[in-house]
């Protein structure tokens, strides 16, 4: 009974993350970031620059567009006082610091397991 396979569509309460992870395999983090659009994040680049801003958009390469940016950490690195928006190439990102309360860890873990299964098959 609880092991009968359920085929019904995910309801609206299910977030974008898990739904899109089912559709095409290597999309977990793309879907995850799409669910964070509009939230404030801090992107730390490989050249040690940290940029705080609002996540505007993301693409399949995890390129990131941020709006309303400011340089966090003491502004010892490029003073981007006049820059309001920026596009960051995904490959130069080292970390993205996320608001912990915006992340559903249980859902993420489930999606990661699914993704791992899909990758193998």
């Amino acid at each position, binding site marked *: 009974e*609880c*092991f009968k*396979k*359920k085929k019904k569509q995910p309801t609206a*309460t*299910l977030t974008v993350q898990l739904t899109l992870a089912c559709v095409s395999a*290597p999309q*977990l*983090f793309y879907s*995850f*970031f799409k669910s964070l659009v509009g939230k404030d994040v801090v992107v730390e680049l*490989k050249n040690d620059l940290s940029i705080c801003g609002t996540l505007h958009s993301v693409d399949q390469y*995890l390129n990131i567009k941020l709006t309303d940016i400011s340089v966090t950490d003491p502004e010892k690195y490029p003073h981007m006082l006049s820059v309001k928006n920026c596009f960051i190439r*995904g*490959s130069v*990102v*080292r*970390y*993205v*610091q*996320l*608001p*912990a309360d915006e*992340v*559903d*860890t*249980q*859902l*993420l*873990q*489930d*999606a*990661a*397991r*699914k*993704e*791992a*299964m899909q*990758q*193998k*098959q």
Partner: protein
Amino acid sequence: MFQQSIKQCGFVAYQSRTKTFLQPTTNTVEEPLDLIRLSLDERIYVKMRNDRELRGRLHAYDQHLNMILGDVEETVTTVEIDEETYEELYKSTKRNIPMLFVRGDGVVLVAPPLRVG
């Protein structure tokens, strides 16, 4: 293009806040990424490029080793060399981050947390 054999050994129920999911799963560990799958929701140690180390709870990963870690402590180790004595002084800087996405191309090693003694 798709492999014919489906290595499923059964179903496992996973509980999220609102739903129970049934996911096909194989309990056998076949490739290195399966070992990482066993560490989901566990604390792990990640060694990265540029003498950085992370310790945190693994929430998600993919085949590139992109990861989401929670309750992370990052340690950056630097070596300062005394100009006169040429002594090497190792310094480490730590910081805590509540939730972190780590890009996979910086990851070198993933392991269970190191136990001292």
